[in-house]
Every structure is written in structure tokens, then in C-alpha cells.
């Protein structure tokens, strides 16, 4: 633990924090643009060239809005809701390996804030707290729509977290490690998990949509039925935090999908092109971001294609649809693993 190491980590943390915020900022623009294109429109294009300043304008708008608090709201919890959501959204980026290692002045630096040996577990633990932000916010608003939204969020989270974990268990089984870095490293050379775990991937992808409260699982928000759901009573930057954290979650989820199933920063012929170590790392990071962008686009694509599930359909799908598949996948993986690897 020398000063160089600490300094590097601080720089990395700040960089990833800023990056997450930037990506989230421009995801809002991308979402509106993509939505526009899917509906034969142009999307925002007035603020700056191609509407590139639109996120700034949106942010400014949110800041200028009245800071409203319902009369009977629980003040502490009301403020805690969005803060917790935002905090948790940002926390989970800590264990994702954003690239290989950089060699600067003869020292090797990993492009990962913390290579904890329980990385996967950490992400799940942190993401599960995320729903508390929604629950607390909905409860503290003292509004029946908000409460309904948070109740839905909670039950949705319970239904999908299990299937999600089950699909991860198979990866942990084949990798033999909970460390995200280890999982990514083992996929190098195009041994991507998606090829060996297609069912697990589909289950995980669906659960990721549910986890981020995106359409077709945006029941907690549900603009048309619950007039905004858990953030009905929120305004100004508190609302901004909720909306923003959704995009950060989307970003992190995409990064998780890319890391767990698509080899993270792995790209074809990674070590066969005769590039320097640092170059390979940087290109790997670029490859990871390409994958993240694709999954971000997929999130939006799905949102503007599929209608929202009904509450009971969602429950049935989670428990009776995904769960059996996840379990079957786990059992099958175990069976083949025992048959071929031992």
C-alpha cells in the first residue's frame, strides 16, 4: 500500500465515477434519439449539434424545478430514497474489470477498482439494496401510487433475483471462482460463456431487464397506470437522481452482461496481433465499451418494442417461467461439468 498505488486507485475511482455519470447522461439522450428513430422521428436535435447539449439542458431544467416535498412525507426517508438509489447504482461499478492491466513505469496497474474474490456476490448484494431506495422513496412519499410502485418493485425484485442468481451459479460452477476478474480472464481467447451457457444468458438478460426496472418490466414506474410509480411525488434533482440511477444501472447491467457472458474486455485475436501490452489493454477496454454500447442499445430497443407485462403475468413469468429454466440449466451444467471436466 504505497502512495503510488493509492493515488492510482483514487484516479481510477474518480475516472469511473465520472465515466458512469457521463454515460448515464448521454444514455438519456441516446434513449430519446433511439426512441425517435424507432418511431420515424428525429428525436431531440435543437440543443447543440445532434442535440448533444440536450442532457445539459435537461439537467439544468431539473435543477431549476421546484424542490417539492409532500406535507405528510417522512422527511428523512424521503431524502434517503433517491440518495440510496444513486449510491447503490454507483457502488456496483467498483468490481467490474474495465480492462486488463496497464504497465506504467514498470508497474502493473489493473483497470479494476477492487478485485474482490467475491465480486459476483458483491454486485448482487449491492444491486439488491437498490430496491430499498425505491421502496423507501415510495413509502416516504405518502402517496398510494408511489406505494403501489414500490410494492411492485419489491415483489418484482424477489421474483427475478432468484432466477438471476441461479443463472450466475452456473457460471460460478464452470469458472470455479466468484471473482469477476477471474471469470473474465477465463473467457479469453473467445471462450465466451454465452456459447456454453446460452440458456443462462437468456435468463440473465431477462432478469437484467427486470432488475433495472426497464420495459417490459417497468411496473414500478408504470407511467400509464401509476402516474410515475415510486417517483410520483418527487421533483427537481431528487427525481433526477431516480431517473439518472436507472441509466447508471443500465450501464452497469450492460457491463455485467458483457463481463459475465461476452468475455468482458476480450476481443478476437487479442494476443495474436503483436501489439504492446498497454495497447492490447486499451483496445480491450474499447471492446468492452463496444459491447456495453450494444447492450445499452438492446435495452432501448426492447423498451420501444415490447409492451409492459401485467403484474400477475410478471409474477408467473418470474416464478413459473424463468425459475425452472434456470434450475434446469444449473442441473444440466452440473451434469455435463461432472461428465467432461472431471
Amino acid at each position, binding site marked *: 500500500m504505497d502512495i503510488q498505488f493509492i493515488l492510482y486507485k483514487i484516479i481510477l475511482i474518480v475516472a469511473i465515477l465520472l465515466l458512469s455519470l457521463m454515460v448515464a447522461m448521454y444514455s438519456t439522450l441516446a434513449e430519446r434519439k*433511439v426512441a*425517435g*428513430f*424507432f*418511431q*420515424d*422521428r*428525429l428525436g431531440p436535435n435543437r440543443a447543440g449539434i445532434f442535440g448533444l447539449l440536450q442532457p445539459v439542458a435537461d439537467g439544468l431544467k431539473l435543477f431549476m424545478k421546484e424542490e417539492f416535498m409532500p406535507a405528510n412525507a417522512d422527511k428523512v426517508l424521503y431524502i434517503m430514497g433517491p440518495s440510496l438509489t444513486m449510491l447503490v447504482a454507483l457502488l456496483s461499478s467498483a468490481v467490474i474489470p474495465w480492462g486488463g492491466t496497464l504497465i506504467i513505469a514498470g508497474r502493473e496497474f489493473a483497470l479494476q477498482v477492487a478485485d474482490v474474490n467475491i465480486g459476483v456476490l458483491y454486485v448482487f448484494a449491492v444491486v439488491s439494496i437498490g430496491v430499498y431506495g425505491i421502496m423507501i422513496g415510495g413509502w416516504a412519499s405518502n402517496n398510494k401510487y408511489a406505494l403501489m410502485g414500490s410494492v411492485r418493485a419489491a415483489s418484482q425484485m424477489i421474483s427475478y433475483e432468484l432466477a438471476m442468481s441461479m443463472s450466475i451459479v452456473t457460471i460460478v460452477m464452470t469458472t470455479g471462482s466468484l471473482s469477476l476478474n477471474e471469470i473474465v480472464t477465463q473467457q479469453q481467447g473467445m471462450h465466451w460463456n454465452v456459447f456454453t451457457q446460452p440458456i443462462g444468458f*437468456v435468463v440473465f438478460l431477462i432478469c437484467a431487464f427486470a432488475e433495472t426496472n426497464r420495459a417490459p418490466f417497468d411496473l414500478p414506474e408504470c407511467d400509464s397506470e401509476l402516474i410515475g410509480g415510486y417517483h410520483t411525488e418527487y421533483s427537481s434533482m431528487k427525481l433526477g437522481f431516480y431517473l439518472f440511477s436507472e441509466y447508471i444501472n443500465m450501464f452497469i447491467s450492460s457491463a455485467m452482461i458483457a463481463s459475465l457472458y461476452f468475455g468482458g474486455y476480450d476481443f478476437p485475436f487479442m494476443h495474436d496481433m503483436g501489439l504492446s501490452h498497454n495497447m492490447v489493454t486499451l483496445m480491450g477496454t474499447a471492446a468492452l465499451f463496444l459491447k456495453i454500447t450494444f447492450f445499452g442499445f438492446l435495452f432501448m*430497443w*426492447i423498451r*420501444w*418494442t*415490447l409492451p409492459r407485462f401485467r403484474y400477475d403475468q410478471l409474477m408467473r413469468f418470474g416464478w413459473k417461467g424463468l425459475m425452472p429454466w434456470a434450475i434446469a440449466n444449473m442441473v444440466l451444467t452440473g451434469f455435463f461439468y461432472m461428465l467432461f471436466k472431471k
Partner: protein
Amino acid sequence: MNQDQKKISLTNRSKVVSNKKMTLMERFYLPAIFKGMSITASHFFKREVTIQYPEVKRPFSDIYRGLHVLKLDDEGRERCTACGLCALACPAESITMIAAERKEDERNLYREEKYASMYEINMLRCIFCGDCESACPKEAIFLTNRTVPSEYERADFIYGKDVLVEKKDSRIDVSKRQTPEVLAFKQDKSKSHNN
């Protein structure tokens, strides 16, 4: 649903609701989802229908019925004689006027002895039917392919002569509306419904 109800279909596109059991493939949903996604993807690459409004304007028809104009004659005199036929014809009762007698030194301003000292159209009442134009015996009022701009106050929508009368140096072309055929039709008393 009985047989009689089934027959009532204006477009022949109505589908009978079926609650048949879904096949295994349908219950997977994924093929349907991919189908949906391919539809949206095809729209992603389609040409956008957006018209960039302030820069690009949707072309109006030449005979669009928009904001009125009170025409001047070739010598720049007001054609309107405040006969009140337009106000009478107006189904929305949006036109009102006050008639006045022309002074001797106003011969260059008004074409005939009588003119409208006040002429107002309430644009909130107006339904832009064009009946005023049809009723006018002096070819004084026309609807043009201009639109009524938005205002903040209701009172601002009552347009007086200052807005309605065309300016001498910037005439408004209504030749597309008043073709010789239209003029002939209007002057043919046998076709008039006012007699």
C-alpha cells in the same frame, strides 16, 4: 357473439377474439419478441417524417383557408363598402363592423361612398369556412394561406383593420383563389343562393 353482430364490420379487418391454447413455440414468446424487434429495427432505418418546422414549412395549398385579408383595389383604395353581408354570412358570428360615410378628401382611401370605419374579426370564433369570401359582392375579403399566430391574451385575437387590410406596398396575391371561373360563378346571379 351471435351471427348478426359478426356481420357488422366497416373495414373488414375486425378479428374474432380467440382464446385458444398457445402452442409450445408461442409460449416461449421469444420468436414473437424477435419478430417485434425486427419490425422496430426496420423502422430504425426508415426515413424520418419529421419536418424541421421553423426552417422547413409544410407547403400549404394555394386555396388554403387561413388568415383573412381585406383587399385594396388597383389604385390602393379599400374595396370594402361595409355592406355587412360577410357578417351576415358568418356562421360563427365572428365579424363585426361599423359603416361610415366617405369624406371628400378620402377619395383616394376608399373606393365607394361608404366604407368600414371599424372592421373586426374574432379569430377565436372564426371557423375559416370562407363564407365571408363567398358572400362578398365587392371582392374585398379573402382567406389566404397564412395562419393566425398564437397570442397570450384573448383580446389579441380580435383582429382590426390594422392587421386585416393589406398594405399598399406588400400586396397579398389571391389570384389562385379568385380565378376568372370563380369570379364568373360569383357574379352569375342565377347560381346565387342569396336571392
